[in-house]
């Protein structure tokens, strides 16, 4: 048992932290208010390795270990939720399955530009108007073979990064008969004719991370764009989400950490009844709980990442880490507003944004309810 990060992991954290403190955090409010994606910072992430965290070096990636990858997302979350979500989705949801299931040709074609920042980002498209938690029963987007092509028709919802991506990994139904072997993943370049990306959704938070409805109208891509095995789309999705959930857990820890730090600072500065509010026990308890819960959440996230890195099963652990970390983060951000009093409700203070940003974390990549369902299935042999 060893709770210490390795020297290399500490150094990774240090470098990413410095980068985020300089390039993301000072702009986070602007990114949120303007809804402008922070391309300036993201372009600088390429050479640093943040756009290909777990991509092998031969494809231009940083090939860091799973814990370092979680740390990177945690630090990004500490600086800017919007940018962190975009980068987390790009790494975990888009590049993850290409690394894992892609053919050599697919990897050669897509990984180098996406991992180095020469191109735009990538995204994963699962959700539809009628399919969120229930993908197996709900997905209606179809792909039909015609000659040497797949023809894709349908509508997707909530696609993070759709307008800032070169490539979509799309979950489609390839067997109209249905069932757990009826879905597949297909790689679809975003400039393929027939794709319409709707304007960005108006959201409660994460406004600098564009989310879109996307329609596919007779979109034609080569048969060789099938990612992984035909009919294994659901299983590949679930495995991708295991990894993505570690990322969302880490992102939530980062957001919570930022809120916690802001609350600690404010508790020193603000005075009521003749003393700094940190002298009031009610405030102390909120902060003591935040410190404790954040630490527990962080350990759970690293634990799930550690199992992932070892190549051991970690579906249950990733679900537990995501469930716990995102709910802790929401509580910590909520209490950070409480510590700030009326000012916490003002957009002038960072905690207001953090609370709105972290609200998504208990929903995206599987709601808290779905995480509990996954955990229950494991512990009850369901």
């Amino acid at each position, binding site marked *: 048992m060893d709770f210490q990060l390795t*020297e*290399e992991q500490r*150094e990774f954290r240090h*470098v990413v932290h410095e980068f985020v403190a300089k390039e993301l955090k000072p702009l986070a409010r602007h990114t949120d208010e303007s809804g402008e994606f922070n391309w300036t910072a993201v372009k600088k992430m390429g*050479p*640093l*390795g*943040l756009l290909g965290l777990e991509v092998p070096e031969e494809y231009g990636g*940083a090939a860091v270990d799973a814990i370092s990858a979680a740390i*990177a997302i945690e630090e990004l979350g500490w600086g800017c939720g919007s940018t962190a979500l975009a980068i987390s989705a790009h790494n975990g949801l888009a590049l993850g399955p290409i690394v894992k299931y892609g053919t050599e040709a697919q990897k050669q074609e897509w990984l180098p530009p996406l991992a180095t920042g020469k191109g735009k980002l990538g995204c994963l498209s699962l959700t539809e108007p009628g399919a969120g938690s229930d993908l197996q029963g709900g997905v209606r987007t179809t792909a039909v073979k015609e000659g040497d092509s797949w023809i894709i028709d349908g509508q997707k919802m909530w696609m993070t990064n759709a307008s800032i991506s070169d490539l979509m990994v799309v979950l489609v139904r390839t067997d109209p008969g249905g069932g757990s072997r009826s879905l597949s993943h297909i790689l679809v370049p975003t400039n393929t004719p027939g794709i319409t990306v709707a304007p960005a959704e108006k959201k409660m938070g994460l406004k600098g991370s564009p989310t879109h409805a996307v329609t596919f109208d007779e979109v034609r891509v080569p048969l060789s764009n099938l990612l992984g095995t035909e009919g294994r789309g659901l299983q590949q999705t679930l495995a991708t989400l295991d990894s993505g959930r570690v990322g969302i857990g880490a992102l939530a820890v980062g957001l919570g950490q930022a809120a916690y730090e802001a609350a600690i600072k404010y508790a020193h500065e603000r005075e009521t009844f003749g003393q700094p509010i940190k002298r009031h026990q009610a405030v102390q308890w909120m902060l003591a709980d935040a410190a404790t819960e954040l630490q527990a959440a962080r350990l759970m996230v690293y634990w799930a990442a550690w199992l992932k890195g070892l190549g051991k099963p970690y579906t249950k652990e990733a679900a537990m880490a995501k469930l716990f970390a995102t709910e802790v983060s929401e509580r910590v951000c909520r209490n950070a507003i409480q510590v700030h009093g009326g000012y916490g409700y003002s957009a002038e203070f960072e905690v207001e944004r953090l609370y709105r940003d972290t609200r998504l974390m208990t929903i995206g990549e599987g709601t808290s309810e779905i995480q509990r369902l996954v955990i229950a299935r494991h512990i009850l042999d369901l």
Partner: protein
Amino acid sequence: MKVVVCIKQTPSTTAVLTVDTGGNVKWDDPGGKPNVLNPWDEYAVEEGIRLKENHGATDVIVLTAGSEESQEALKTSLAMGCTAAILVSDAAFSGSDTTGTARILAAAINKVGGVDIAVFGKQAIDGDTGLTPMQVARKLGWTPLTYVSAIKEVGGGKITVERLLDDGKETVTANLPVVISVVKEINEPRYPSLMGIRKASRAEIPTWGAGDLAVAGGAGAAASKVDWSNIYAIPPRVGSVEMITADTVEEQARILADKLFEEKVI
């Protein structure tokens, strides 16, 4: 083409300098930040790497004279993209003044051998003299090009640079080898990459001691010409406040003006 980049590890930019009554100097960072690669030297490291990327340098060797702990700054430079690192460290060298430091660095550059360009930062944020690059050039007998804001051309045994001076810019050409010191206008230093950090953390950095170098003229405290025998904190300024009272504002102003005349302020 071989390039050596000389760097120094310094306290962080937020560290606070204190001198106690015994004359002991401390640079503690209130936030507990560790020592860093001298911020001015980030530009030197970046320019060294660009000499490799844009001007065909084969080696970009980062060099420092300092304590064992200075390895961290060397590793940062390796993670940014330097090809090798050398630490010069020996108890016999501690207490060197800038002349001693320059002799050590010149000896190390000679030992590397075949170096065409030695790149320095403009100054170190702690010692802050800005003397080292000039002195190293002198010891090596190379042309010094200080305050360089752009490297225009390297080739045919020559280098052309732009120097940023108080009253303008100057473009000069010199024969290699040269010592250059760079200003922050020259580039935007890159961040160390995650791939670079991994390489750096596995790199073996050789340490050269007094026995490995032929330091002409001596170094270390004994050879230091600078006398550090009396170090003390700058005494706080003493002053006094006088409130001018009078019946009218005009009268107050007249008294104030008279006093300022008296004190030769106006």
